[in-house]
């Protein structure tokens, strides 16, 4: 007769039985299944993230199809198919039917999913709410057929249970398809599957994503590039970011024979000298077996590691989107809104917090069909995953609200909070460890280091916006002047001359007096031989001008450009080129041109023009050369600039006459006859 179990044993047994189900119930919210609408989105999100990660790891251009169909009220079927490398038969049950199982739980590189809870939680949710198995189809290239498995997650044991299994012919070389039936609700608009996929498409312009909605609507986000992002390298853990538990795990799992070797080879940033220092400060013998270091010794080692002077963690493991692709992604997805301005995206250099590298990227879009009377749209991303919930609690939103956008041309009540206007902000935080506010990974937690980088990146983007808006208002003002000199003045001169019976006088002096600017006009002319960007510099001022012209363009564009005439000098790293222009007489012009290979993606906004040798008030389409360029200007240019500055000061003192037409318009007497 077996011994009667003790009460403790009974309780323990009971506890195990309820563990997984109860874990799920208690954590529904942080797992993202706390309401029907969210459950559907989380399911889509987990499956798509897995699909993208799988394809990218195998250097395959991702192609993801999401099909959502309605079974009945509050019951939907979600099928997500990817073109990843497929999953080996023996791994399939664990990947989908076991919580906390994943290949990157201890991995040190940037990846979309981090905990390995995601897809199996969706399987569990589907099992619990519809009592239907998850149906997984997966094929690897080496095999001829695909495995089809029906999987339940055994809530008693946290183990997969395969209910049925089959081999089928699948008309694709490799890939994985997961089908789930779950209690859910489908919506459109904010926080919808559509919005999530749109965001995903923007930051993954190399992916092709198809969404089939319950009513049969098919939305395709075509890929905007066939270049895969450089794969994030897997790196060793850096000591600064280690916690006791993880150090213990690393020591135990280490195959190095000695502690010295463990420190030098299993960790990042530890030099030979640092190894000696660490051994000295922890007092541990260099020859100890790593697995033998336990308890108090482990704690001493960790303290020594945290206190040591080490090389900062490498940022190789980060996978930023990159300025070019942010622009391309935004253009690709927002193109039909015809925004007037895509700011050059800001990609901050990587920084480190704790032992983890991170970096911040910001994209800004303005005008066109974006709604003008609403708060700007904020697209938040962490490791290329759109964040749709908890916007108000997110460090990104906070950083946006702390920038005084009024200085940059957006409306903002009291200079704080999310600004209003026809704008859209894309903010991406990439890190091997993004500090989320909760396990649901919906909002980034406040962190002084990240906040600093966010603020700097946002301000840089905001400066681009301000430059754009001020150029636009100057252009509007200038377009009036161009209308006068090109259309009105010639006719006025013709009529006045006819009435007095004399020939029309030379209008050059009057034209230059009215305009009084040097105009720099950039055009983009694509043709079969390439993309030509001619730049016309016209001296619409009453005196001859000697000028130096500077161009700043993204370095990758400069590398492809050929100029006519050749510049006096270039700086490939900073993307700069400069010319001394021939002397320009009043109403005189000169043209220079940049040529790019066919289909180069280049537009007028890629060029920033700067001019030396003239007062700021007299340039249009360019800015005065900033002081921090640190270039040595030829003597003639310096003199010309001095003369221009004096002229500018003198011009400000001329007597203002009352403008008759402006006075009339403001008199408010239109109601009288």
């Amino acid at each position, binding site marked *: 007769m077996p011994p009667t179990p003790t009460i403790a044993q009974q309780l323990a047994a009971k506890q195990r039985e309820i563990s997984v189900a109860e874990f799920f119930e208690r954590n529904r919210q942080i797992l993202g299944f706390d309401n029907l609408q969210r459950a559907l989105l989380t399911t889509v999100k987990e499956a798509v993230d897995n699909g993208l990660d799988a394809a990218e790891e195998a250097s395959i251009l991702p192609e993801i199809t999401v099909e959502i169909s309605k079974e009945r009220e509050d019951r939907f079927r979600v099928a997500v198919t990817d073109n990843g490398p497929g999953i080996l038969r023996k791994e399939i049950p664990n990947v989908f039917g076991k919580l906390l199982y994943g290949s990157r739980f201890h991995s040190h590189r940037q990846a979309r999913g981090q905990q390995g809870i995601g897809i199996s939680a969706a399987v569990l949710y589907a099992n619990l709410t519809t009592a239907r198995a998850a149906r997984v189809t997966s094929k690897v290239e080496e095999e001829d057929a695909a495995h089809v498995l029906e999987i339940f997650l055994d809530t008693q044991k946290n183990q997969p249970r395969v209910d049925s299994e089959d081999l089928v012919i699948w008309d694709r070389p490799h890939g994985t398809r997961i089908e789930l039936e779950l209690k859910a609700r489908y919506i459109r608009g904010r926080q919808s599957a559509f919005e999530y996929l749109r965001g995903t498409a923007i930051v993954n312009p190399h992916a092709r994503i198809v969404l089939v909605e319950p009513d049969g609507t098919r939305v395709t986000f075509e890929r905007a590039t066939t270049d895969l992002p450089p794969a994030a390298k897997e790196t060793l853990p850096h000591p600064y970011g280690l916690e006791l538990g993880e150090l213990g795990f690393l020591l135990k799992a280490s195959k190095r024979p000695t502690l010295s070797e463990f420190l030098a080879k299993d960790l990042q940033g530890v030099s030979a000298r640092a190894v000696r220092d660490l051994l000295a400060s922890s007092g541990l013998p260099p020859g100890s077996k790593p697995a033998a270091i336990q308890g108090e010794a482990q704690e001493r080692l960790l303290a020594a590691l945290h206190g040591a002077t080490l090389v900062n963690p490498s940022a190789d493991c980060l996978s930023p989107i990159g300025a070019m692709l942010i622009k391309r992604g935004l253009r690709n997805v927002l193109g039909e809104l015809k925004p007037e301005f895509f700011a050059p995206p800001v990609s901050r250099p990587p920084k480190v917090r704790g032992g983890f590298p991170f970096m911040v990227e910001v994209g800004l879009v303005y005008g066109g069909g974006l709604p003008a009377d609403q708060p700007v749209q904020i697209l938040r991303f962490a490791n290329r995953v759109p964040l749709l919930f908890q916007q108000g609690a997110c460090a990104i939103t906070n950083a946006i609200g702390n920038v005084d956008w009024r200085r940059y041309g957006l409306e903002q009540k009291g200079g704080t909070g999310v600004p209003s206007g026809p704008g859209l902000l894309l903010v991406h935080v990439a890190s091997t460890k993004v500090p989320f506010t909760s396990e649901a990974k919906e909002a980034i937690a406040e962190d002084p280091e990240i906040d600093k980088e966010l603020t700097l990146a946002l301000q840089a983007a905001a400066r681009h916006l301000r430059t754009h808006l001020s150029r636009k208002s100057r252009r509007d003002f200038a377009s009036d*002047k161009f209308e006068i000199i090109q259309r009105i003045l010639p006719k006025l001169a013709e009529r006045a001359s006819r009435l007095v019976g004399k020939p029309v006088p030379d209008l050059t002096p009057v034209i230059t007096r009215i305009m009084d600017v040097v105009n720099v006009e950039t055009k983009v002319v694509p043709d079969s031989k390439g993309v030509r960007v001619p730049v016309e510099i016209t001296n619409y001022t009453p005196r001859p001008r000697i000028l130096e012209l500077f161009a700043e363009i993204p370095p990758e564009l400069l590398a492809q450009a050929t100029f006519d005439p050749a510049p006096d000098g270039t700086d490939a790293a900073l993307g700069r080129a400069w010319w001394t222009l021939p002397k320009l007489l009043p109403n005189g012009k000169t043209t220079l041109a940049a040529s790019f290979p066919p289909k180069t993606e280049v537009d007028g906004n890629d060029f920033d023009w700067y001019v030396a040798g003239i007062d700021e008030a007299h340039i249009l389409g360019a800015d005065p050369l900033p002081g921090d360029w640190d270039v040595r200007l030829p003597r003639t240019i310096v003199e010309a600039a001095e003369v221009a500055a004096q002229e500018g000061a003198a011009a400000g003192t001329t007597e203002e006459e009352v403008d008759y037409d402006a006075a*009339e318009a*403001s008199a408010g*007497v239109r109601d*009288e*006859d």
Partner: protein
Amino acid sequence: MPPKRARASATKTEADAPKIRADALTPTFDLAKQIYEQLDRGEIPRMRLPLRTKQNLSFQARDGVWKLGKAMGTRSARKLDGALMLLRTFYVVDFINEMAADKKTSTLRELYYISEGWDDAKFHSEDESNLLIEDLEVMCERLREDFRLHPEENGASVIGDLTIKEKNRKGLVKTINCRDDVGDGGYALPFNVEKEKIQFVGTNAKFVIAIECGGMVDRLAENGFDEKHKAILLHLKGQPARSTRRFLRRISDELKLPVVVFTDGDPWSFRIFASVAFGAIKTAHLSSYLATPAAEFLGVTASDIENYDLPSDKLSEQDVRALEAELTDPRFATPEWRAEIELMLKNGKKAEQQSLAKYGLNYVTDRYLPEKLTQMGVL
């Protein structure tokens, strides 16, 4: 878009058209010469004009009206608006010369549509074309009729025992009594009320009452106010047209009748009175010809609203702004008007003429007007 027309349609025969004097447009030739010389010297074309703003009104004691002061503004081709107005001036001059050659006249509205054919120089609104014609009046010291331009008939009406002779479109002279020879609508004023068109024959009336709203004119006529009190009723139709103001001025000058103005009690009605009695800002160059300095304001005044306990509305933000603007308007800078404007601001109330109907349909003619006219010494 209206069809482009090469020239204006004739509205009258040459015999009746105002004569264009040979030298009427001479100043425009001077302008062309000036602009040519500026261009030849490399200067930005510009011209100077007296500013028609309330700050540039100056009181002419001799005439008792407000005219343009000495402040000048510059219309310059440096700005798009200025450049366009300069160019349009020449188009308008060409058009006027064309009309003279063809013996035609045109309405202001027709001029606006004629400009459709002027390419860049076309007017964007009728306001713009009207302003330019006024500029020409100022520049050439002429009336727009001298340029063969006139407004559309706007039919301000007269009811009362006033006999006039009008030379009609067919050149026939009709003698009309504005009470006995007209229908309920009264005698409609033509746009031209000059002596060559209208002559006063005689009247038994003792005064003229100029009224803002048509409903009130009808009320007074129906109640027989004009006969009982020997009054001429003149409908202002809101802000009165030039012809209405000129007609009042002629009655005042030639028939020596007192003129009282009866409007709503709100800031806009004060402006109606100002343009009748003091001279309007836009036509300040013509004040000695259009304004009737002898005209007096009858009401509704701010104190009437209180004294007669009239149904009132709260002043809107716009109303308050208008009153505040009037406090800086030199025409209202008398102790009486300041007190009136400040009282209205203080009470925050405005009332319509018709609010007097609170006490019945006869109240205005039996009680209010006799009381007010007695106070004013008219009755």
